Structure formats: structure tokens, C-alpha cells
């Protein structure tokens, strides 16, 4: 598989009054086309900084991000983002249909509408197009955000803790929804989460980050196959082993940091 995303020696330092904050340092990894890679790390470790640097929303102070071999400079046109906070990332003044059409401005109107309907159908919201986001439940709103990202047909879909703000049941549904649509549309996904179980359940690979400044401590392949099941997969030996491994790595990552502090 060709490489979709390459992050090389990425570092970002936020200037601040109380001294600069080094959020990310020496971060390197690649994501192949069609892969779903989960990035897991302790909260506040710089995961969001990483994601914003890939999305071109911030210019990293060090290192490079390349999409299909082309260095990212500004916001890449073939990339979509799903943020954790769906209620603030959907536009409340637009209907659901118009929200999904929002990124498709370059297309003729009829094509835009058709693509949005198709994307809404794929997340099971074909009836909700005329509603406003405020009239939908949190889980449904996040589906709209996912539909919007899918309608854009991005080469790379970035997801920043996409299921962290919904209840457990909805979360399982949305996780399975993601697995289904990314297979249907052959989308490359980079998903950032602080949830170990989620990273193992969803990922083809799990990247474990250290505490801030974030760098990769482990790159674990997930040998759970393509078909995953919320109950069976989570009970399987491979899953349990992997989640223990990730947890240990994360604990180790924080221990190293603690040791440094002393």
C-alpha cells in the first residue's frame, strides 16, 4: 500500500508567558492508504496539536507533514476533520443537509445535494436532512459530522476524540458505523483518542504516545482482522493482550515523565 501520510520529526512549541510549552517533539510515523490508525496517549499529551498540525490549522515549529508525498503547507484540500465537540463543529444556522453540503462548494448544486444525501444515508440519517443540528441528539449530531466528512471524500479523515462526548451505547454504535463506512469507502483514517479500548477495537495499528512533549513510544499492529464485534472482539485474547500492552506502555510513558520531574 502506498503511504498516505508521513509525519517526520514533528515538533511544536507554543510560546507562552511562563516560558514556551513544548507540546510535541520528534514525532515520526506513517499511515498507509486505506489504513485506520489510532493514536492513543495520556490526556494533554499533545494529540490535538499533532492533529491540528496535520490538518494545516497550525504550522509546526519543527519537522514536516506530507500527504501522498507532498509536503503540507496550509490546509490540504483532500482532508476532512471530525472534532470531538459535534455541537460546536456543526453550523447551527444550517440544516443538516446544508451542513453536509458545506465543504462541497466547488460542485454543482445538484451534485452537492446528491452527495450529501448519500452520505447522510450511509450514517442512517436519510430522514434528518431538513432538521437543524439543535433538533438532534448528540449521537445523531456526531453522525452528521461524520457524514459531512465522508461527503467530502477525503483522502485522509482525521478524527479528534470523535466519540468522547457521547454515551457508551451510542459510542459503540458510532464505532461500528466508522468501521463500516471506512471499509465501504476505503477511507484512510487517523483517529486520536485517550481511550485504550477504543484504540485497539478500531485500529489496524495503534500508535502510543508519551506524555507531553509527545513522541511515539510504540507502533503496535492490531491482529484482530477486519470483522470486529463489540462483544466478541473485546472478549478475545488478542484484544485483552493488546489493551494490557497499550495500558502498560502508557503507564510506562507517564512513569518516565514522572521520573524526569523528580
Amino acid at each position, binding site marked *: 500500500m502506498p503511504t498516505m501520510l508521513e509525519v517526520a520529526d514533528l515538533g511544536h512549541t507554543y510560546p507562552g508567558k511562563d516560558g514556551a510549552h513544548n507540546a510535541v517533539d520528534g514525532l515520526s510515523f506513517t499511515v498507509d492508504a486505506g489504513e485506520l490508525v489510532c493514536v492513543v496517549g495520556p490526556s494533554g499529551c499533545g494529540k490535538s496539536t499533532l492533529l491540528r498540525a496535520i*490538518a*494545516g*490549522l497550525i504550522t509546526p515549529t519543527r519537522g514536516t507533514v506530507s500527504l501522498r508525498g507532498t509536503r503540507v503547507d496550509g*490546509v*490540504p*484540500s483532500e*482532508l*476532512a*476533520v471530525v*472534532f470531538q*465537540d459535534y455541537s*460546536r*463543529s456543526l*453550523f*447551527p*444556522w*444550517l440544516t443538516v443537509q446544508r451542513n453536509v453540503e*458545506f*465543504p462541497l*462548494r466547488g460542485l454543482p448544486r445538484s451534485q452537492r445535494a446528491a452527495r450529501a444525501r448519500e452520505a447522510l444515508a450511509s450514517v442512517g440519517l436519510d430522514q434528518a436532512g431538513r432538521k*437543524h*443540528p*439543535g433538533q438532534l441528539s448528540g449521537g445523531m449530531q456526531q453522525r452528521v459530522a461524520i457524514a459531512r466528512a465522508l461527503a*467530502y471524500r477525503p483522502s485522509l479523515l*482525521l478524527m479528534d476524540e470523535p466519540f468522547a462526548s457521547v454515551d457508551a451505547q451510542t459510542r459503540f454504535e458510532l464505532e461500528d458505523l466508522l468501521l463500516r463506512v471506512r471499509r465501504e469507502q476505503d477511507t484512510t483514517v487517523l483517529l486520536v483518542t485517550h481511550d485504550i479500548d477504543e484504540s485497539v477495537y478500531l485500529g489496524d495499528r495503534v500508535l502510543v504516545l508519551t506524555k507531553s512533549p509527545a513522541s511515539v513510544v510504540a507502533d503496535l499492529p492490531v491482529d484482530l482482522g477486519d470483522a470486529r464485534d463489540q462483544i466478541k472482539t473485546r472478549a478475545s485474547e488478542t484484544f485483552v493482550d493488546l489493551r494490557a500492552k497499550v495500558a502498560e506502555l502508557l503507564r510506562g510513558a507517564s512513569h518516565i515523565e514522572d521520573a524526569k520531574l523528580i
Partner: protein
Amino acid sequence: MRTPRVPASLTGLACLFAVWEAASRSDLVPAHYLRPPSVVFPTLVRLLGDPVFLRAVVATVAATLLALGIAVLIAVPAGLVLGSFPPVRRATMTIVEFLRPIPSVALIPLALLTFGTGPDTKVTLAVYGALWPILFNTMYALDEIDPLHVETARAFGTGRLAVLTRVALPSAAPFVLTGVRLSFAISLAVVISTELFAGGAIGLGQFILAASSGGAHMDEVLAGTVLAGLIGFAANSGLEWLHRAVFAWNVSADGLR
């Protein structure tokens, strides 16, 4: 939640008129000057059949709306610029804060000498008065824009200018309309005040001024005054209705935000 609002507000008005009637009939105030509504309203109805009076009302309302329209055309783009570019805002805020407290009425002599007694004067002054609520509401609405909305739009490749028109403007629009609602009353008040001062200019203010001389036609003075209030009330209700109709997403359960 929507239906009880109109009757409730009308009940309030009815109470006000009842108190007025009672005050007028008591000996607390000279009844000769504060004519009761039972006299004023029939006078108002009679005046509404009078073409001269109607022409004055139309002149006042037209000037008010024209001024409001011009104020929107100036204040919304200015508010967008001041709200989106902090350096421009810092550079101009002292000018704005200096100009804003100056009452439009204080500019009447200057405006009269500059523009004469025609409609230019009252429209210019009303524009001046109506600018500020729209400008400030637009500007502060931009401060309130959710950064995640902007980030989302940008992540989908939306350029800076497009973010302004596709994200900033719609998210500020309800606040802008609230500014317009506040500005209508200001515009109307400034137009009538200028007509009162300028004398010659045709309008409701000029009618009130003419009717008040000698104090013999206080019912007509009050009829004109009440009409000004009714016009403001109707405009406010209309704009509130528009807000609910257009910005349904921005209307919370307990009313307008």
C-alpha cells in the same frame, strides 16, 4: 410558548392606557393638557383620515426606514471589519468611543446649517444615531463566534474571506437583527426630534410642534405622540417575528437570545 406573547404584551399596553385614563380623570394632573385616551384615540382615528397628517406620517416613517437601511449598509460591513481585524479595531475604537456618546440631537444645529431643513438633515442624523447598536452588535457577535466553527470551516479548505461570509456573518446575523431592532426606535426618535427642531421639515414631529402651539390641541399632540409609540411597537413586533421566522435555530425556549 409563542402564542401567549402577543396577548400578554397587548394587555400591558391596555393597562398603560387605563392608568393614563385614570390619571387624566383625576385632579393630579391638568386634564386640559393630559387629555385622556378616550379623547386622544378618537382624535387619532380622525387624523388618520386626514391626508395632510398621513403625508406627515409617511414622511417620518420613510425617513426612519431610509436611515435604518443606510445605517445597516454602513454598520454591518464596518462591524465585520472591526470584529475580524483586531489591529483595525484597536486603531479606531477611540474614534468610535468618542463619537458614540454624542447625542444625535446635539448635532441638529450643525446638520441644519450643513444640509438645510430638508429630509437630508433628519436622515443623516438618524443614520448617525442608528449606527451604533448595529455596529456594536455586529462587532461583539464576531467575538462570540465559536473558534471551532472557524476551525471546522478552515479544515475543509474554506478561505479567510469565505469564512467571513459563510461562518462569521450567519452566526452574527441574529445579533445584527437585534441591533437593527434597537436602532429602529433610535432612528424614529431622531427623525421626530429633528422634525420638531427644524420646524419646516414635513413629518410627525413637525405636526406635533404645530399642534402644540397655544396648547389648545393637546389631543392632537398626544395622538401624534401615541402614533409614534405605536409605530415603534409595530416595528419591534415585526422584527421579533422576523427573528423567530428566520433564525429559528437561535431562538431558545424562553424567547429571543
